[in-house]
């Protein structure tokens, strides 16, 4: 598995696109800047909704309207993040493809994207869904805490790709 990933990274590093990204000095900082701006949109949208669930942000506002106002932004941003992230990998494949911080980041992203959908989806058709029973209210708070922790760890893991050695 690791050997295959290494071979893949080596192949990717030799492609014309990778060489262009490596050799034109402004591409990587520019793509990273767009990447960070989209991270800011996702983190802020998710944190504001999670903080609302935990009662520390805009507690008088209905969760469904907050979810509609903020969470709808994140899916487009994640799409841009996947594109810019892929460009960064193509530019420096040996830095990320076999990097444990990168693997952790992708795993956490999958989990937390699922959790975010779990919060958002029922609200679209039933604004009172999460308020219906005490069990649901407790579950929602648990998901919000998990979401805050996981998204924070994703930002940390992203920055640590630059510091953790690849296998």
């Amino acid at each position, binding site marked *: 598995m690791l050997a295959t990933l290494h071979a893949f990274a080596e192949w990717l590093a030799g492609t014309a696109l990778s060489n262009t990204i490596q050799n034109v000095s402004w591409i990587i900082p520019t793509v990273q800047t767009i990447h960070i*701006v989209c991270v*800011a949109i996702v983190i802020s949208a998710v944190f504001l909704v999670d903080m609302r669930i935990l009662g520390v942000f805009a507690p008088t506002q209905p969760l469904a309207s907050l979810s509609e106002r903020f969470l709808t932004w994140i899916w487009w941003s994640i799409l841009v993040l996947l594109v810019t992230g892929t460009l960064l990998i193509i530019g420096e494949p040996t830095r990320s493809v076999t990097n444990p911080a990168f693997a952790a980041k992708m795993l956490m992203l999958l989990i937390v994207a699922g959790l975010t959908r779990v919060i958002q989806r029922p609200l679209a058709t039933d604004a009172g869904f999460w308020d219906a029973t005490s069990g649901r209210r407790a579950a929602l708070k648990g998901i919000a805490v998990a979401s805050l922790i996981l998204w924070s760890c994703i930002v940390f893991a992203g920055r640590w790709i630059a510091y953790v050695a690849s296998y």
Partner: protein
Amino acid sequence: MIDAFCQWLYDTPWADAIRANELLFPWFESVHVLAITLVLGSIAVVDLRLLGLASRNRPVTRLIREVLPVTWSAFAVAVLTGGTLFASNAVNYAHNGPFQMKMLLMLLAGLNMLVFHFVTYRSVAEWDEAPRTPFAARFAGGFSITIWLAIVAFGRWIGFTIGF
């Protein structure tokens, strides 16, 4: 004089500890990035409302009252972690072009905020619930979001240009 101050900062035990432990810098940097994402995102919520591009049916005063504590808390964390990162290599940062631009732009963002708060915002009662705000408010929002995007860009550029 600025160089003397930076050198003093560089020589503090605190800055020395960051340089001595190679894991401390990335930890502070990660918290700095997390704080910046919240600063940028929460400012954008207000700016987009002023521009009439989002939250159009929310009263401006309520939106600002709700969002601003998030912005200021995150900003405080960003300044503390950023100051620590700066101290670890103070003289070089002070002479770094993108760093100087970033500081200048933050000053501009602050001035824009003061003008908005003490001039434009005084008449907010007249346009609090209006989806379309007056020109001065739209200008403040557009100027703010532009500056903050540039601050992120210059911030990222520091890492590619800083000398050690």
